């Protein structure tokens, strides 16, 4: 119980706003994109705006006018097109022993190119109206992981290379981008146009880089000699990481950067089209450990002095660094600049009737392995202050996903919402991929 409450508290109290994908939050359907349609009215009693469609006429409520807005948000999602939820649980949550059955479960699902990604965020966000513009600011914590890998790469890691004696393990594709950063941002949002039906927004964020791990490769393979006398790595690759002796949730600062978010939407009483470009920026990392290669590199053992000249036989630990250096791949420590994994969201909303709104969109994250994620949502208003948003999606790091968003407002100022992606995990963890959830607390005045 203690763990559950602390976990919930953590989600609610850490970090910065996930308002970067603000239209993806369930609470949006009770706030910025609230369905304002009301039931068909008697034409003699109509007041205010009305809309009609296919012979039906609805009145439109006044849009909520607010001066300020405050939100606390946390989310964590992981998805893959091959790695199962059972594996993810054993690897990431319960730290279990990963047995051969669990490994084979993954192998059976592998494609030519496999991907997995996770994104954990938490934050604080605030917005205040000044004149006809809204000024916003917030703090954000993010832990982003993505990987694209081959079946052989997984097998090398989890089975070892002994099974590849005399063979070449194909490591193509092999890409990884793990990022931990914290940011402080400010922005403005303004309605424009004659009818003020368009909104433009922009933010600038100042980023503190915490941890970086990056692998890029091309045509990479590993040959293991049949007698194990040598290993040959072929291909082109770059490995870069910040070197921390211990893993920390908030690592020491290893770099700084900036990014910008851009937002545009156009709407009327029933429709809205939004376009959002997020995390367009970079981080300049300090003292990044890098290994680079383009060619063929052979490791044939660590040379030691013979015991007759030194009087001792010492075999020191053989690890990745010693192997790479023995192959002639020298470590360099230098400052590097990397672009952030930017995201493009395009979404369309339509309020069909006072009870139902539909939304569809596509999301693309510019990182290796990510495929465009298309989704469809149906926001059903159980009451005007209580909405559930079932979602069907396909793509991103995973395949098909079923999700559910829930949002409820209280006392016209508070909104609680959550977005759940547990159904596949609960239904068939060994056969499905993708899980996560978000929580948000918002207050407007």
């Amino acid at each position, binding site marked *: 119980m203690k763990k559950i409450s602390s976990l919930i508290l953590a989600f609610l109290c850490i970090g910065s706003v996930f308002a970067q994908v603000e239209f993806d939050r369930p609470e949006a359907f009770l706030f910025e994109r609230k369905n304002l349609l009301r039931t068909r009215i008697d034409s003699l009693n109509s007041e205010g705006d009305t809309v009609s469609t296919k012979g039906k006429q609805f009145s439109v409520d006044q849009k909520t006018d607010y001066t300020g807005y405050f939100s606390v948000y946390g989310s964590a999602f992981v998805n893959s097109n091959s790695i199962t939820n059972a594996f993810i649980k054993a690897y990431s949550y319960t730290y279990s022993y990963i047995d051969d059955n669990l490994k084979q479960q993954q192998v059976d699902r592998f494609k030519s190119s496999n991907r997995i990604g996770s994104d954990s965020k938490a934050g604080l966000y605030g917005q205040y109206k000044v004149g006809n513009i809204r000024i916003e600011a917030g703090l954000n914590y993010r832990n982003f992981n993505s990987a694209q890998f081959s079946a052989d790469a997984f097998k090398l890691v989890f089975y070892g290379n002994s099974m590849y004696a005399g063979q070449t393990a194909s490591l193509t594709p092999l890409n990884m981008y793990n990022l931990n950063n914290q940011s402080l941002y400010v922005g403005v949002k303004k309605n424009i146009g004659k009818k003020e039906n368009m909104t433009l927004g922009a933010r600038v964020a100042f980023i503190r880089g915490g941890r970086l791990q990056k692998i890029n490769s091309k045509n990479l393979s590993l040959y*293991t000699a049949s007698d194990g006398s040598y290993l040959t790595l072929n291909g082109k690759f770059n490995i870069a990481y910040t070197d921390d002796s211990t893993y920390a949730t908030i690592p020491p600062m290893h770099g700084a950067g900036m990014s910008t978010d851009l937002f545009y939407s156009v709407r009327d009483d029933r429709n809205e089209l939004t376009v959002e470009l997020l995390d367009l920026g970079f981080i300049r990392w300090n003292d990044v450990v890098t290994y680079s290669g383009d060619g063929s590199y052979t490791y044939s053992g660590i040379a030691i002095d013979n015991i007759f000249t030194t009087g*001792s*036989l010492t075999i020191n630990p053989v690890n990745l660094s010693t192997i790479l250096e023995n192959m002639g791949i020298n470590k360099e420590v230098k400052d590097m600049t990397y672009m952030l994994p930017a995201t493009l969201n395009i979404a369309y909303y339509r309020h069909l009737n006072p009870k139902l709104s539909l939304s569809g969109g596509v999301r693309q994250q510019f990182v290796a392995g990510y495929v465009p994620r298309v989704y469809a949502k149906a926001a059903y208003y159980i009451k005007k202050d209580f909405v559930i948003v079932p979602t069907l999606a396909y793509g991103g790091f995973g395949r098909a996903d079923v999700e559910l968003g829930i949002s409820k407002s209280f006392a016209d100022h508070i909104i609680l919402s959550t977005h759940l992606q547990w159904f596949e995990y609960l239904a068939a963890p060994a056969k499905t991929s993708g899980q996560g959830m978000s929580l948000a607390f918002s207050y407007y005045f």
Partner: protein
Amino acid sequence: MQKSYIKFILILIIASAMHFSCKREFEKPRWNTQVLAPLVKSKLTIRDIIADSSIVSDQNNAIVLVNRQQIFEYSIDSLVALNAPPYKKTVKLSSLVLDDQEITQRISLGTIAKQLIAQGNPLGAQIILAGKLGIPLAFPGANDITAGPINVDISKFFVSANLLTGQMIVSVNNGLPLTINNLTFSLNNITPPGLITTQTFTNIVPGATQSKTQDLAGKSIGGNINANIDDMDIGSGVIVVDTSDALLLTLKVQNISVTEATAIFPAQDVVNETTDVELTGLDNVRLTSTIIRQGTVRADVYSTADDTVRFTYEIPAATNENGIFKFDAVVPPAPVNGTSYAQFNSDFSGYLLDLTGQDGTKYNTFYNTLVGRINYTGKLVTLSLNDSLDITLTLLDAKPSYVKGYLGQDTISVGPGSADFGAFKNVSASSLQFESAKMDIVFENGLGIPAKAVVNELTAYNSMTGESVALSGTPINKEYPIEPAFESGGRVIPVLSHIDLSTGSNVASLLNILPDKITYKGLFDSNPKVSLPPYDTTYNDFAYAGTDMKAYLDIEIPLTLIASNLVLTDTSDFDINTLQTGGFQDGKFNLLVSNGFPMDVKIVMRFLDKNGLQIDSLITTSAILAATIDNATGKVIEPKASAVPFTLSAAQANTLIQNGAKLVFTARFDTKPANQKITIYDNYAIEYKLVGDIGILVNSGK
């Protein structure tokens, strides 16, 4: 309805949260992998196996073991010690001289007249009156005139003197106008009273001078003397009396040497001696010259002289670029009735010392000169021929940098001694046959002395097996000449002489037992041909410091051999960290060997704990095969690859990690083909690589 929805949502949230809070099994997820990879590799060449020796390649790149040990040394300090007896000399003042002095005393006519008046002689008044009147006076002549005493002061030259030699010349110049028919005068010493001299002059005409010489030897003279006219007879004549006319009495002392005097002494040498000094303790060594490498001349001086004595010590036989060896010293005056002392040190290094004596015919001898001198000070001092300088001159800690002459004959026993031979350290064999071996004793003679050497015994020992083999054959008890070095332009050119111990001997059998020690015993004779007198009269032997005679035992063993069960053993510390980290579970290992030696190899590795007890072992069941050789050239044409498998369980690894401290590595070699000698070339090597097929538990926490 709404409440039902809320309850459902809460259940979902709680169920989801519980998912995060699932109990963790470990600190990190774990899984087993099987890793096949090479771990370590190394290479063993002949240069790694053979220790403590030089390995060289001949023109064919074949390996030759070369070992050199110094077994004997003979140096200049062994030959010669420069010991000179202290030169003691008590030197009395050999002479004391005084300057010649001249004193003039004027006795006027007026003075004589007054003397006559005082004596009641009326002639005196007549002379005075005549003088006043200035008129001619018929002088009738006067007899028995006396005058004095008239004081003569010579104290500014000496206060007193006991004369050893000297003369006084008394001159009388007649300044009177009449002939002095007779003049007798005397000189008397006041203190001590005594007659110095009395002289009679006759018939001194006016204006004439007569002189008489008085020998003063043995007389004592004070600073004041009295002159007396004991009798003077003046002739007659008509004269114009001038009372200022006078007799001029001149006293001149000359050639004065004293036995003692209180006087103002002129500058003079008081000591001047040249003597020979002979070096001692040289036995039959006869040196004609030497260059002093280090040394000090010290003078200890005692003086009774009342005056400062400056003395100069010279060794004319000792020269450097600045001239002869010389030092000046000042001995302070002695206190009254006392003795003064002074010590002087002078660096003697760098001098070439001629040891042939003053006449150049001697040896081991140099001459020196001592000169003592007093300076003119203008002050009265008391000196006596009894005063002395007591001088002791000592040559301290003298060592030569070069000697020349006849360096004597010496017979020295060499040994019994031993030399460690480490080339076969950790090596043993059941059977070993070197095709050949060469053993020499090489004399590097940097001394200009001929010599001879005899090897009485030479034995090889293997302390591990207890075997020993003594050298026998021609080289034993045979005299071998050792030629002398040359010198040219101040440089020595050493000469090498060899004693060949290989020809006509069993030297190969000494080395076949793989010795770790060689003992030796012999004799060394310097100047062997010239023994008893008349010695070598050419005196051409020489020796330089720093250039000695050394003898070396040289061994050369071409590595062409037949070996059976040649065992190489080494014990080393053992540390396998790599198995302690990384979750090692178990492993199959292969020791991949590429054998470039034409010898089969079997390996045994025994792992010992800190108490020396065996805890595990690895034994190759089959041999690592010899490399293939070309029968025509005898060279390896292709290494042979072999694999030695072994397994290691987690328990075994844990035992090795926890308790393993030492590794005893044993390799057994057998040359192939058997009974055919093979040659080891410089490029032969065994390359080995340890490959592991290892089960690893990832994130084991170890």
